[in-house]
């Protein structure tokens, strides 16, 4: 009873807030408060809505909006897979070799502090202006926070699970996959969340800094709309970016948690 009341309270206040902000926006837009620049800063909501619908249903001329999204998501996915894969390999090796652990710990601490975009000049020299640059940046933004989380997780694995594992004959890689990795699930998932957030931001930033003709993405699209003074389209794209974030959160992370750590009673 109390909980549903609280839910209603939270939903109503949030809706009220969104409606109020929308009303303010529209008022400012209609009154052209910012003079000649007003249409660029506060394009009317109908214009943004129209741009959103045009993009989504692919009604406009030229390259479909979905192509930009597809390009971005494809590179993002490749980068994520590489980054996550490498972090498991390296953290796994850290568990097997003490020397490797000490060195990798240092490497993670250093590179975790280095924003991927700062590496851009060097990376472009290495790869040229190619999709590989984006993949590299994404992998870079994923591997360090992911590794940090997995390492922390490995250290926090209760001794009793490790001993129970050894007792039933697990050793080496089988102890790693049979005990350490599942016992670290909640750390892996929070690492995934941080990694995804960084990768997503890194992707958009990189695409806005330089467009890759072979594979133009969402960031590139935003930049193009800005250059062409199509700010309603730009805002519509920002909405899409937020929506993708929401979809990933509720469509991917929430189910992963539900079927793993929540089901196992292990969520922190």
């Amino acid at each position: 009873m109390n909980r549903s009341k609280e839910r209603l309270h939270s939903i109503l206040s949030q809706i009220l807030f969104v409606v109020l902000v929308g009303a303010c926006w529209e008022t400012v837009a209609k009154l052209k408060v910012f003079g000649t620049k007003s249409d660029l800063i506060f394009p009317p909501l109908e214009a943004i809505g129209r741009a959103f619908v045009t993009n989504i249903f692919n009604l406009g001329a030229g390259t479909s909006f979905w192509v930009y999204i597809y390009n971005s998501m494809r590179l993002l996915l490749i980068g994520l897979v590489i980054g996550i894969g490498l972090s498991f390999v390296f953290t796994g090796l850290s568990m097997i070799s003490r020397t490797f652990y000490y060195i990798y710990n240092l490497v993670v601490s250093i590179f975790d502090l280095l924003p991927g975009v700062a590496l851009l000049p060097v990376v472009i020299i290495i790869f040229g202006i190619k999709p590989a640059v984006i993949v590299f940046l994404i992998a870079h933004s994923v591997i360090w926070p992911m590794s940090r989380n997995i390492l922390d997780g490995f250290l926090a694995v209760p001794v009793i699970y490790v001993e129970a594992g050894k007792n039933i004959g697990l050793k080496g890689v089988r102890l790693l996959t049979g005990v350490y990795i599942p016992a670290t699930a909640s750390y892996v998932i929070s690492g995934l969340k941080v990694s995804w957030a960084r990768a997503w931001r890194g992707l958009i930033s990189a695409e806005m800094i330089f467009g890759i003709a072979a594979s133009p993405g969402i960031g590139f699209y935003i930049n193009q709309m800005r250059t062409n003074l199509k700010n309603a389209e730009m805002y519509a794209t920002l909405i899409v970016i937020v929506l993708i974030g929401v979809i990933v959160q509720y469509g991917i992370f929430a189910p992963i948690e539900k079927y793993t750590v929540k089901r196992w009673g292990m969520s922190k």
Partner: protein
Amino acid sequence: MSERETVLKISHLNKRYQDEGNPSGNILEDFNLEVKRNEFLCILGPSGCGKTTLLRCIAGFEEFEGEVSIEGKAKTEPDTDRIMVFQDFNQLFPWKTVEKNIQYPLKQQGVQDKQTLQRITAEYLEKVNLPGIEKKYPHQLSGGMKQRVAIAKALALKPKIILMDEPFAALDAMTRNRLQAELISISADEDCTFIFITHNIQEAIVLGSRVILMSKNGKIKIEEQNTIARPVTPASEGYARMWTRLHDALEE
């Protein structure tokens, strides 16, 4: 009775812990013990006398000097011939269901047939009076149920020895009594040797076919066969005398 073969032989066991180059004194000093097949050995002793340390050396979780041998073979690493049931309720893997917790070690041993695995699981859950909880996750069980599953998991592996470190200490008296009764009937059925640590004199007398009482540095102060007729209750002939003997020795 005394003709039975020796399962476990511990000779000249010395154990000290190395904490940051600051070695402790000998926790166990020249410790010797023989355990016969199908014995139920209960170990009593004051807190800190080295009971857990001894069990961990037997299990292969600790380094030590001296020799621990199972059926004549020296052992230094953990293995499935000695399975530990810990005091901690959270010894089952939380990411596996009860059934998977029991089956996983069996699979590691090469049992792959699904029906065999299911039959073994059902059989041992039945033995610990928990039929039908195969699909539950450990966090859905009470502490007593978790300990029973841990016992079922250990039994299913058919180890030579089950090592139990105060597995019932954190349970309420009623649950504890029920688990003791279950363990008595299980140990009568199974071809398995038990080493059971407890603080509780009653528990040692009720469960043990032999009771030893340790004091400082792992010295064995009392060692006696439990000749009280089973099932043992506080009213049994000889119970009071044995209890007093153990109690007085513990108090000293």
